[in-house]
């Protein structure tokens, strides 16, 4: 399993691996929003938590179809399915690799992007907390969607349609944590809800992903 994680991270880092794709997309969104809504910093500060969360979510979505599609095309998914690794382990490692290459860089870079959108000072801590708690759910749900659409040519559109509704609760509570944090309100309830969503999806969805992957390999 460790070797699969190392291989996936190594592939992501090499040429054409797509590492940084999500990050640069996130950067483009946050740089362009002030041009779109105007340079008024009070307005920007108000919408910053929502924009940052939306940007993070779309950046995650961008790289989802690569999770299984490349392994499917070159046949290594079949070989992994006949290897000693349990399928549940394979999908968990895939989700973890996706989070490490997409979610984690977004979490680390978010304060810089918050600055671009003049996020109030007290909001930074909660922005990072919300992203750290929420992006694992985005990766795990996305892995489930990628498992459902593996083997479809140009499955990216279908994947987005399948995954976006499942992303809505994470987006609502994640953006709510960041908004309440920025406005200096208490954040306990949305933080607990967000953590609950992440814990629930991480506990349950790998089994569903492994099942649909086995069906899709037939």
């Amino acid at each position, binding site marked *: 399993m*460790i*070797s*699969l994680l190392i*291989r996936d991270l*190594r*592939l992501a880092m*090499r*040429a*054409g*691996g797509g590492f940084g794709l999500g990050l640069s997309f996130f950067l483009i969104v946050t740089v362009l929003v002030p041009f779109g809504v105007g340079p008024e910093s009070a307005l920007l500060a108000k919408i910053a938590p929502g924009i940052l969360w939306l940007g993070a979510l779309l950046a995650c979505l961008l790289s989802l179809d690569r999770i299984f599609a490349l*392994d499917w*095309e*070159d*046949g*290594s998914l*079949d*070989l*992994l*399915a*006949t*290897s*000693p*690794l349990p399928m549940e382990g394979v999908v968990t490692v895939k989700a973890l690799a996706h989070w490490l290459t997409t979610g984690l860089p977004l979490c680390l870079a978010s304060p810089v992007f918050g600055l671009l959108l003049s996020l109030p000072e007290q909001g930074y801590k909660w922005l990072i907390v919300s992203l750290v708690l929420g992006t694992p759910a985005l990766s795990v749900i996305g892995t489930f969607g990628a498992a459902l659409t593996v083997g479809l040519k140009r499955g990216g559109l279908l994947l987005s349609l399948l995954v976006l509704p499942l992303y809505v609760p994470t987006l609502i509570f994640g953006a709510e944590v960041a908004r309440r944090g920025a406005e200096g309100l208490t954040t306990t309830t949305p933080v607990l809800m967000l953590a609950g969503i992440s814990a629930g999806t991480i506990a349950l969805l790998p089994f569903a992903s492994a099942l649909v992957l086995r069906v899709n*390999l*037939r």
Partner: protein
Amino acid sequence: MTLTVKDLTISRGGIPVLEGLNFSLEPGHALILRGPNGVGKTTLLRTVAGLQPPVEGEVQAAPESFAYAAHSDGLKATLSVSENLHFWADVFGTKGIQQALDGFDLNGLVDRPAGALSAGQKRRLGLARLLVTGRPVWILDEPTVSLDVASVELFANAVRAHLAEGGSALIATHIDLGLDAEVLDVGPFRAKPKSGTGGFDGLDESFL
């Protein structure tokens, strides 16, 4: 480690392609599958490897005894030859890739990215993976595609060595590997159309 297939019926895309298959494969033996294109050799191999469930019948073998090699080699273009082999050795929990490199004459290519290999070299690397799996039953789908004569001989030697160590191999191929192996022609096991379906006589390649 005997592989036994009993009354197996397999389907592709919901349509039965082969039925009533019975064979067994003892340690140290190889079985060559033959049959026209589209008859269901790949489907049979995938079913035996456990990638898809049989419609009827059963495949009896110890779990985790198969090493499957498909049409595609499962190589990562940006990883080098040794990185590709080391990855599969780690996954299967075996140590050392030197034997595999020697067996398929890959020593001169260890640091080359797999994407820069020729088709025949890629195939050799794909087959070298079998040696690092340490699994007793090899299931091979057209293993000699794009191999030259010398490489086919390397492959045949690898299979002979594997059989001599008590392994076994189930191979779908159209060329003569010079192995001392039984041959099973799967053509006669084509699934008969169910009565009443009408108009579907025998195998229609384009329909599958």
